[in-house]
Each structure stands twice: as C-alpha cells, then as structure tokens.
C-alpha cells in the first residue's frame, strides 16, 4: 500500500499487514514531528502539503525500486499531510523480507528517497508565523 492520508497513521495495522509466513524480518521506519527545544522559541506543529497525484505515484515508484533491488515481499509507505503534532507520525515505511539485512536496507532506502523525490513539503508552524523547511521562506518576523 502506497498512500497519502490526512489522519493518524495506524502503524500496528501496517505491520500486521506485512506479516507473512515466507518472511522472517519486518523493518519499519516511522518519521515523527520533532521539536528542537534548543532553538529557544518552539515549533508548535508541522503542516505538510503534497502535490497529488504525483506524490502518490512517486511513493509507488519507490516501492517498485525496492522490489527491484531487494527481496522484499511486502512494502507499504504511508505519508500523512496536514497538521502533525509533536511526536506524531508523519510517515511510516514497512518492509518485509525473508532476511533482516534486505529489510533494513530497503526501509532506509525508502526514507532517503522520499526526502529526495516525493513532492511533499512541510512548514514549521511557530507561535509567530511559519517557515517552509528547506526553503527557509515564511512569515516569521
């Protein structure tokens, strides 16, 4: 499953769907909203937007790349958009493989590729405005 959602990601259900008798390993990566308290003032939440359906298709392409490179029998990637509060999951990647090496490598690959090619953007929303991550453009004073 490769999809973009605007609500909480059910990681347990994604892992359950990946459990297969022909696989011995499931590597899951969950990206969560991190608040860097060291920056003094504090980010209240992140807000994601996507260019759909291109973003959906790019997630599917990453899944296909993984199936070409590794013996991955199940791959799912779910990315959330809209407001994501601190500690909440913005993305979940689940890869099942017969063996653990390929499972780890493929899930790591997926998150790196997401950050390279999937047309999704996040902005940090502060009490005094927002900043687009990566562009450093926003409304903060």
């Amino acid at each position, binding site marked *: 499953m490769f999809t973009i959602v605007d609500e909480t990601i059910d990681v347990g259900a994604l892992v359950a769907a990946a459990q297969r008798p022909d696989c011995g390993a499931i590597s899951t990566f969950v990206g969560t909203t991190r608040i860097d308290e060291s920056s003094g003032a504090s980010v209240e939440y992140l807000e*994601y937007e996507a260019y759909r359906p291109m973003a959906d298709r790019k997630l599917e392409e990453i899944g296909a790349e993984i199936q070409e490179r590794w013996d991955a029998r199940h791959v799912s990637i779910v990315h959330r958009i809209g407001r994501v509060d601190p500690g909440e999951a913005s993305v979940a990647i689940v890869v099942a493989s017969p063996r653990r090496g390929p499972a780890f490598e493929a899930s790591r690959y997926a998150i790196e590729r997401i950050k390279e090619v999937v047309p999704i953007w996040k902005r940090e929303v502060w009490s005094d405005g927002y900043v687009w991550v*990566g562009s450093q*453009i926003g409304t903060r004073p």
Partner: protein
Amino acid sequence: MTQKSIKVLFFGAAADRAGTRESELSSEASTLDGIWPLLEERHPGLSPMRNTLAFAVNGEYARGGDTVSPGDEVAVLPPVSGG
C-alpha cells in the same frame, strides 16, 4: 478557434512567493525555460527562488528544455521536505 492555456500550480514556499497556488498562462507550445519569463513577469516574488526550483509537467519531473504545450499542467516545486 479556442486557445487552451497552460495550467501552472505552485507549492510550498513557491506558492507563498507567487502569491497564489494556481495560474493560467496563454502560451503557444514552448519549453519550461521558455515560459519562465512569463511566470517571473507575473509573479516577480519567484525570481530569487529560481535556482532552488524544480518543475513537473503533467505530474512528472521535467527539465528546462522539455516541451510545454497548451493543455499541460506545470508544477513549480521548491525543494521537497517530506518524511
């Protein structure tokens, strides 16, 4: 004769700088490089971002020399920051 237009979508910081999320260009068949001056003229706030932007035509990444025709959808994409 009807003249179809090129639909242009702006995302993230590019939407902020363009001041809109969507625009229509009346242009003959051209290239991404060819329509950029039209976009810049209409949305001058985009100029400083030029070097950071990527583009998609009809939902697939495209380069400056790639063709854009009336009826196409062009997307103006700042550096992605998903994950």
